[in-house]
């Protein structure tokens, strides 16, 4: 449990406070409900590029970072498909500095052509470093459009391609700001060695005067239900074949979300997991396996991953993967209990740091599920063998598979 209180200012800013008096520091998160899902398909990557520009000075404060450094703070930000989160940790008695800086950049940025051009360069190098200059680095750039055809989830948050980032204009940046950055599209989370009434006074003082803004609408298409498998084969200069199999799952807020999420855990998390035992230990067909959930808000995506051992064919792997999925019929409650215990420990380790508790509150409020945060483990513990098998049959059905084969140049598909 993370005890918190929720308050809403008259301009719509949601303020969540978590008091942890034993901690000497404070964590401040501002989560804006804007991400790459809000982008124009011809300007993908704008939400993340914009995040960079948030550090380039605001109307009254030319050097955002300098003041945080002086206050002994650490800070950064990240952008996802659904949200953009700015976070700071600092000694609790420096809290007001964070309010000053964050409210000023919510009020307005000191935009300029030169700053935009500079951050375009930086982001293009980031694009290369993460996605082009790593073996398999571009796999997800290809997997997303295989999994989504209509929804903006079809491009990665970094952007579909470098040309989109290069094409962004200052006018587009300004328009993006005023239609998404607003108190009525934001949650402020403050956690740590703070008092709720003092936090609320600061919030009212610094954020209260910022007017509401008219937000851009974000009505998005629903992906059609899959009827047949889809795949893409890439041949690249890599030493081993990687196979990524993606399946659609329900939206984050859907009660049906939990069973496929838990199934993915059972399949791919740890050395006792089903995929590891069968594909790495028993048959030695793979050198690495995994399974993960992309954590998207709208109807989302899970992915099974395998790195094939030298000599393994794609057909051998797929036959064995099908056998693993079929073999789940033998699932026992004990296996579910083990996976739930691991989730319990992972959650507790994560919440050891107050900054992570603040982040959890921010992310869950952004996905409209603040009140669910305290009962997540119960959700998973309540799942039965039948629930998990039903999720397998419903979501991991063969006709729903979207598979990317990332193969060495010489390997047959």
């Amino acid at each position: 449990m993370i005890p918190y209180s929720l308050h809403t200012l008259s301009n719509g800013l949601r303020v969540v406070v978590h008091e942890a008096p034993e901690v000497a520091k404070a964590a401040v998160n501002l989560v804006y409900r804007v991400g790459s899902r809000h982008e124009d398909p011809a300007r993908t990557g704008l939400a993340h590029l914009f995040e960079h520009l948030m550090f380039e000075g605001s109307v009254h404060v030319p050097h955002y970072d300098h003041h945080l450094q002086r206050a002994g703070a650490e800070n950064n930000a990240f952008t996802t498909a659904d949200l953009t989160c700015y976070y700071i940790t600092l000694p609790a008695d420096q809290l007001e500095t964070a309010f000053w800086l964050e409210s000023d950049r919510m009020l307005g940025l000191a935009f300029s052509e030169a700053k935009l051009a500079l951050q375009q360069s930086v982001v293009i190098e980031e694009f290369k470093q993460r996605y082009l200059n790593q073996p398999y680095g571009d796999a997800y750039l290809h997997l997303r459009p295989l999994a989504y055809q209509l929804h903006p989830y079809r491009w990665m948050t970094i952007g579909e391609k470098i040309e989109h980032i290069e094409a962004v204009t200052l006018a587009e940046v300004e328009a993006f700001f005023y239609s998404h950055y607003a108190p009525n599209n934001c949650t402020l989370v403050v956690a740590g060695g703070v008092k709720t009434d003092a936090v609320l006074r600061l919030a009212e003082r610094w954020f209260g005067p910022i007017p509401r803004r008219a937000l851009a609408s974000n009505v998005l298409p629903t992906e059609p239900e899959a009827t047949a498998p889809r795949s893409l084969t890439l041949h690249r200069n890599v030493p081993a074949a990687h196979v990524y199999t993606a399946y659609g799952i329900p939206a984050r807020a859907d009660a049906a979300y939990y069973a496929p999420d838990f199934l993915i855990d059972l399949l791919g998390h740890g050395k006792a997991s089903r995929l590891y035992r069968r594909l790495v230990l028993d048959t030695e067909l793979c050198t690495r396996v995994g399974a993960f959930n992309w954590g998207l808000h709208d109807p989302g995506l899970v992915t099974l991953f395998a790195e094939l051992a030298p000599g393994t064919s794609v057909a051998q792997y797929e036959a064995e993967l099908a056998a693993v999925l079929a073999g789940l019929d033998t699932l026992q409650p004990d296996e579910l209990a083990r996976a739930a215990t691991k989730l319990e420990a992972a959650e507790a380790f994560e919440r050891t740091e107050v900054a992570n508790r603040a982040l959890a509150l921010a992310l869950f409020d952004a996905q409209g599920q603040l009140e669910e945060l305290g009962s997540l483990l119960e959700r998973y513990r309540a799942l039965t063998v039948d629930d998990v098998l039903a999720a397998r049959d419903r979501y991991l059905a063969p006709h729903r598979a979207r598979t990317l084969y990332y193969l060495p140049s010489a390997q047959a598909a």
Partner: protein
Amino acid sequence: MMPLDRSQAPPLASLQAPPVPAYQRHVLANGLPVYLVPFGSQPVAEVQLVLEGGQWVQPVGGVANLTARMLQEGTHGYSAVELAQAFDRLGATVNLRASNHHTTLGVGLLSRHLPEGLALLQELVVRPSFPAERFTQLKTQTLQQLRIQQQRTQYHAQRGFFQGLFPSHPYGQVESAEAIEALGPDDLRQYWERHLRPLSGYVVVAGAFDPEPTLRALEAQLGVLQPTPAPDLPTATLAPANQGHTHVAVPEAVQTTLHLGHPAPPRSHPDYHRLRFLGVVLGGYFGSRLMATLREELGYTYGIGAGFTALRHAGYLAIRTDVANAYAEPALAAIRTEVERLRQAPIPPEELERARNAYLGRVIAGRETPFQIADLLISYLQHDLPLSTLGQGFAQVQAVTAKELLALAQQHLMPEALWVVSAGG
């Protein structure tokens, strides 16, 4: 209330030194020292068994790490799968790793399962069976990862950097596919028997747990083990480091990794904390000289980092970044200029205050959780530093002047001695 003036920064408080970390020290019946850090708001704990023996004593590159990883691939009492399932039941994550001088067996788990976790830890450390078929698999996996790593510019730059910085020395030892290929399970068993089974080391337990029953469990699981004789540690002579620039061509790479630096003092040096701080000014925080110039002014890179690292017998300055191939030469020139600039003029007061507070703020932030305190203790114990000196770095960095930093820069930053490895297209 004062009217709101957004052009005025709110007043800042001065940064307060965090309390000196608290811990308990005990010695088990067999002489194994135990350090307890019992606090925390979440019901989890982490045990770390730190043993003397790591890359320093391995016969060939890769043995120390492979041996550590093999400990959970089967014991005389459990198969690899049985071990994994047993740990899962405790909510446990196992982390086995070798560093320059140590092998660490870490188990993080739900506090209520600490006694069972300690029993499994005992199983790993004294009863590993090194099953041949598991070793063959591990070797296949390791060689596959190595082939993938060899496509990364970062891999080649780092490898070349350490080989040239510490030629023919354990700190410069790297893994090779041929050497790993030639290993058998007996090589690992012998390494374990000689360097890990002696149980020469200590245990650190951190988290939310009750010390009394935990000590009893430690006594029952680890205190009953009879240590075996530990070998004398070999010595190694440092040869002069390479200087100059070497390039590794990586076909198809769209960026070049730059990894450069030179030797620096070991951890025992009295200026350790001040030098670390100097490294932060150069390249260790977002406002550092290198970030300000190469990213925020020139736009050459997404990020650049630099810092002094101190080991038991040596240390080094390292600077690393990834840049577009076309920027490699100008980036290198800009880096050299920044290193030189710290030797030419004192750090201006405004910058010194920012860097100092960023550094001290990080120290304060790093004392929040029991696991952070445990890692801090281990960093002292690993270097045989007296725990009575814990926390003294804060005051040293708080007091250091621009003049002292200039003198340190002139002594320990050596632009003419830089060893530069670039890897890219």
